[in-house]
């Protein structure tokens, strides 16, 4: 089976130890995490982790099984890129002198729909949100001008299909309230 990018979404109770529990599952199987983010989700009090890995589908199924087994994990899913709307955000810090003197840079920014976030006499901060390839392209273009700093967020994604977390929680409540 060929390796490809899978995005694992994990809905969890908000719990301190859970990140290390989840990370340990990848560590034990020598799987490199390409990116990871954690944030609140659409459900009150429920966290959502989004983890991108490059593995075979067989492997990602097993990982999701192990993740779901953790007590505080409500549900875990995996998706391929086609099943998701996903984005990353990158920040590029460049010297103001370069920016002002080189019209190319200004063109790049316009062409790529990047946004200037901050302007100071010393530096500019540019933000670009999009697919990996897009943030990467801008990186390549700006690099020759001496990027002062570069940082890229983990992937955040929503699925095209419904996740049904509220239903799962609802079902639990009806099953246990006697």
């Amino acid at each position, binding site marked *: 089976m060929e390796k490809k990018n899978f995005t694992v979404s994990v809905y969890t*109770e908000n719990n301190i130890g859970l990140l290390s529990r989840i990370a340990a599952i990848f560590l034990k199987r020598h799987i490199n995490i390409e990116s990871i983010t954690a944030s609140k989700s659409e459900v009150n009090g429920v966290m959502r982790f989004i983890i991108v890995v490059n593995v075979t589908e067989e492997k990602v199924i097993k990982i999701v099984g192990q993740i779901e087994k953790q007590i505080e*994990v409500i549900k875990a899913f995996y998706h391929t890129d086609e099943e998701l709307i996903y984005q990353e955000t990158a920040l590029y810090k460049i010297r103001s002198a370069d920016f002002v003197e080189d019209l190319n840079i200004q063109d790049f920014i316009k062409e790529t729909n990047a946004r200037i976030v901050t302007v100071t006499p010393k530096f500019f901060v540019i933000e670009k949100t999009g697919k990996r390839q897009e943030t990467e392209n801008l990186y390549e273009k700006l690099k020759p001008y001496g990027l002062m700093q570069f940082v890229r967020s983990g992937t955040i994604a929503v699925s095209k299909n419904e996740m049904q977390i509220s239903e799962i929680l609802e079902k639990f409540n009806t099953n246990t309230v006697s």
Partner: protein
Amino acid sequence: MEVKTANFEKKTIHSTTTVSGAEAVIKCLLEEGIDTIYGYPGGAIMPVYDELYKYQDKLHHVLTRHEQGATHAAQGYARVTGKVGVAIATSGPGATNLITGIADAQIDSTPLICITGQVGSHLLGSDAFQEIDIVGISTPITKWNYQITKASEIPEVFAKAFYIARSGRPGPVLIDITKDAQFASMDFSYKKCSGIRSYTPFPEVNLLAVQRAAEAMNQAKKPLIVFGQGVILGEAEALFKQVVEKSGIPAAWTILGLSALETKHPLNVGMVGMHGNYGPNMLTNECDVLIAIGMRFDDRVTGNLEQYAKQATVIHFEIDPAEINKNVKADIPVLGNVKETLQLLLEFLKPNEHTAWHQEFKDYYAKEYDKVIKHELNASEGELKMAEVIDEINTCFKGDAIIVSDVGQHQMVACRYAKFNSSRSNVTSGGLGTMGFALPAALGAKMGCPDREVVAIIGDGGYQMTIQELGTIFQTKSAVKIVLLNNGFLGMVRQWQQMFFERRYASTELVNPDFITIAKGYHIKTNQVTERSQLKDAVRDMFEANEPYFLEVKVEKEENVFPMIPTGAAVSEIRLE
């Protein structure tokens, strides 16, 4: 952070009393029906020990001689009773000494609660004296763990911990409690946990899957059942037996499934795996339908996965969804508690006898008997064989004893030859293979089942890993029967060195102490067998004793355990010599 349980809001209806966190810990244990705990005191857990002093007539604390012993004793207790075992230790080294037992309980699905003291919460993260991040360390080897820093959390967390440890696929839970939380006072009320919204102990049963399984079983010409501890953990032994008897399907066991079906049952065809029986291993690769029940296709069972039961339709009855397709692809996965799924299955099964197919197992057994078993049981000269000792134990104890084995050659021989009449009678460290397990586990087993005979079968290597628990056995006067099969070697490793490392016996020959003197030092009754002629009387004498008993048997130094599937080989490449 708060702990969420289903009944979080409904708790207030219970009456409360004001107690210290430490006393609350004891009260939680009593609420959960615990009467015995195993442990070792130290600074960070002293408030709880102080309460134990007050509650000593209600809660029996057994002082083991090492925290590892406490975990194994709690495991032994849990394995024979089906109840949750409890171990308690102080912070730092006390906590880290629990790790081996916790890992063992995790991989063998044993319900265990481990309580550790922790430095005061104001000291957390400061590398204080005996501060260890035990929650971090134990994360990959616990079903759940939690650090309590406020006394008020105690009842909720304990209720949740017990629920998690014993429900679904059982496992170990660790609760770390800071010292200030033990001292602080709180309003105590207790409500057992009945559900956690993010945790499904039993996956939903799919009737269609059960029907498909039954169909495949009914149509099979050469079906083989392989059962594991799931049958025992699901308390489904009686049902399982009905399934076997109605379907007429030969049933083989994994090391942890042993004793779920009595040894002498005509459909019990022996052990699968590395040192299992010839027939079930060979025929795994000939059966047309392989029915796995409550087992997880460990590599010691399957050998080379690429050549494991490839011809068979695989049916997998399993409680843990993560086990489905983990190692062996299941054509028909049947999720759920086997107690439920086997009940449903039974209805759909057609009676059958599979006489010709059974004959194949018998033929293989005859070959194994001829090449291996006969020589191990009936030797009349030369050094004593381990199997002879087990056989003599069978004769005396008649299959009614709980057999607790350690890890190594003697373990394989014990499991191969010991006879069992009832479930929960085989206690051994399967998944982790923890040397040193047996002596403390036997103590726990005896305390869990005081009316049953408990025989520990231990090698001279593993014995010395937890030998100090003789002190606990002596102090508690637990009538454990300890059989030391002394071959002067780390036998199992020596066997591998002989077979795969051209007899380079690196560090496997043991220079042993006088074991009899050591046991005598603990005022334990002793006996030693050096000649075949002494064996019968010695085992009889041990059987009749109503006190702890230590029997050392000098066995053949360089005996090898066969049959054997060499690592990496297929189950059908099992060797008889």
